[in-house]
């Protein structure tokens, strides 16, 4: 194949954009796991709800005549984060808090139950058909172009949409890292992660901190939902399942409980998928992503950046 480098660059851009979506969702899995040690399997559905809130807001704005893209995008993001956060908060309050302290299996099964519930809830409210949306952001910039043997030109371009996705993801992840490492809220979260009882003894409201963790995870997942919607243009009530599982895979790949791990894992899964689709077959891209997970877990059970569980003496 000619134009190898250009083709490679194209796939890389695709992979990184896809990885942004996975990374943003994976943070929610990893944070919740870190603080209460459970896998929130309904997190994919939170992402899906974020996508639905986005499409509803976009269409409403369209009816209202607000079509200036930057303004519309900001309104959609804010709405989606706000509404989805309420769902995340409610989920923890209603389904998980009553089970705190019960065996892990109970929480896990509840999470799967909530996932099924939320899918059906959206299906009932919004119908089972896929919801399309017109392309919101069009155009792009040409990064490089080269002559192909048959006389045509191969153009590597970065669409404005991809650029916005990348910038948005980088900004969110930076802000988020600062929150976790530098602010009192982040310190309280890490304290609850390490020793919940001691955190309470110091005056940390543990329940509120856990709620806020769910809210933060949901807000990031909702942004991923918005991105997914404007990138792919169609959503349905089941969209959270596969994306959720992939993001969970990303979190485990990076080392569940580790924030940089979730970001790295998301990026890797996205890139692996893009390259596999680009160089081999699209049909087996999921197999590739999960295959890598299996390999990593065999050789590094704690994930790439995960810390081994050291027993306290």
């Amino acid at each position, binding site marked *: 194949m000619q134009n190898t480098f250009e083709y490679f660059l194209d796939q890389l851009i695709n992979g990184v954009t896809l990885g942004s979506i996975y990374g943003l969702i994976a943070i929610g899995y990893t944070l919740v796991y870190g603080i209460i040690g459970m896998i929130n399997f309904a997190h994919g559905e939170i992402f899906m709800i974020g996508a639905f809130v986005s499409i509803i807001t976009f269409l409403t704005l369209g009816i209202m005549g607000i079509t200036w893209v930057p303004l519309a995008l900001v309104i959609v993001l804010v709405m989606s984060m706000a509404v989805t956060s309420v769902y995340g908060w409610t989920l923890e309050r209603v389904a998980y808090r009553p089970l705190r302290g019960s065996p892990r299996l109970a929480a896990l099964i509840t999470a799967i139950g909530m996932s099924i519930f939320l899918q059906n809830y959206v299906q009932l409210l919004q119908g089972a058909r896929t919801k399309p949306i017109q392309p919101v952001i069009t155009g792009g910039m040409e990064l490089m172009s080269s002559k192909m043997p048959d006389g045509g030109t191969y153009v590597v371009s970065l669409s404005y949409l991809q650029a916005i996705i990348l910038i948005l993801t980088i900004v969110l992840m930076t802000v988020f890292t600062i929150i976790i490492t530098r602010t009192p809220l982040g*310190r309280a979260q*890490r304290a609850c992660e*390490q020793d919940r009882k*001691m955190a309470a003894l*110091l*005056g940390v409201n543990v329940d509120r901190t856990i709620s806020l963790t769910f809210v933060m995870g949901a807000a990031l997942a909702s942004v991923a939902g918005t991105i997914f919607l404007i990138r792919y243009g169609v959503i349905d009530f089941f969209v959270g399942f596969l994306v959720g599982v992939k993001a969970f895979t990303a979190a485990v790949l990076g080392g569940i409980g580790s924030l940089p791990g979730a970001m790295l894992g998301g990026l890797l899964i996205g890139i692996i998928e893009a390259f596999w689709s680009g160089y081999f077959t699209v049909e087996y891209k999921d197999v590739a992503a999960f295959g890598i997970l299996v390999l990593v877990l065999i050789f590094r059970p704690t994930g790439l950046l995960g810390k081994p569980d050291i027993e306290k003496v």
Partner: protein
Amino acid sequence: MLEIRGVHTFYGNIEALKGVDLDVHEGEIVTLIGANGAGKSTLLMTVCGSPQAQRGSVTYEDTEITRMATFDIVRLGIAQSPEGRRIFPGMTVLENLQLGAITTNPDFFEDDVAKVFDLFPRLKERSNQRGGTLSGGEQQMLAIGRALMSRPRLLLLDEPSLGLAPLIVKNVFRVIEKINKEGITVFLVEQNAYHALRIAHRGYVMANGKILKSGTGKELLADPSVRAAYLEGG
């Protein structure tokens, strides 16, 4: 300042405290001594509402705190350096102290940290080191320092001398006296009865979830049964 009346605390079906009465007055150092498993740590944790007393009452400065949430109780001005120190191993010394100050006005932070570093100069040298890498004595200093960061009026200390070298133990007790002289009331749980009774104004002896004896530090030090059980050969 702290009134404990007829407190019964259970762990599951096990009755760890079987009706404890105890008082701590403002400005005192009060010590609670007793063997392993007597219920000393349970009493300290019951004061902080974790676990809560099943029967009886705990009153702090005329506020009944028996059924209050832990994080609300400590906001009243009670701080605890708990059994096993429980510092956050994955965080730096400074972050541990910042967590101690979570309930106070951030404006106080600089002053309060300076005071803690003044009390424990070793912590200053290690302020950017992770808590888990500290030695036992340093971790104990950090646990006490962290408790002081919340500007408590009542400080609960659970076996601050446990596992420390004799020289460091002396130092820890000196610091406790110093803290007390600065106006903080101290409730000290100890197995190291000799040191504890020497610095305490009053003391209680506990066994099997009950208070056996009480008196001034001097009286208990001189008491033959106390000497036999907790001081000699130990």
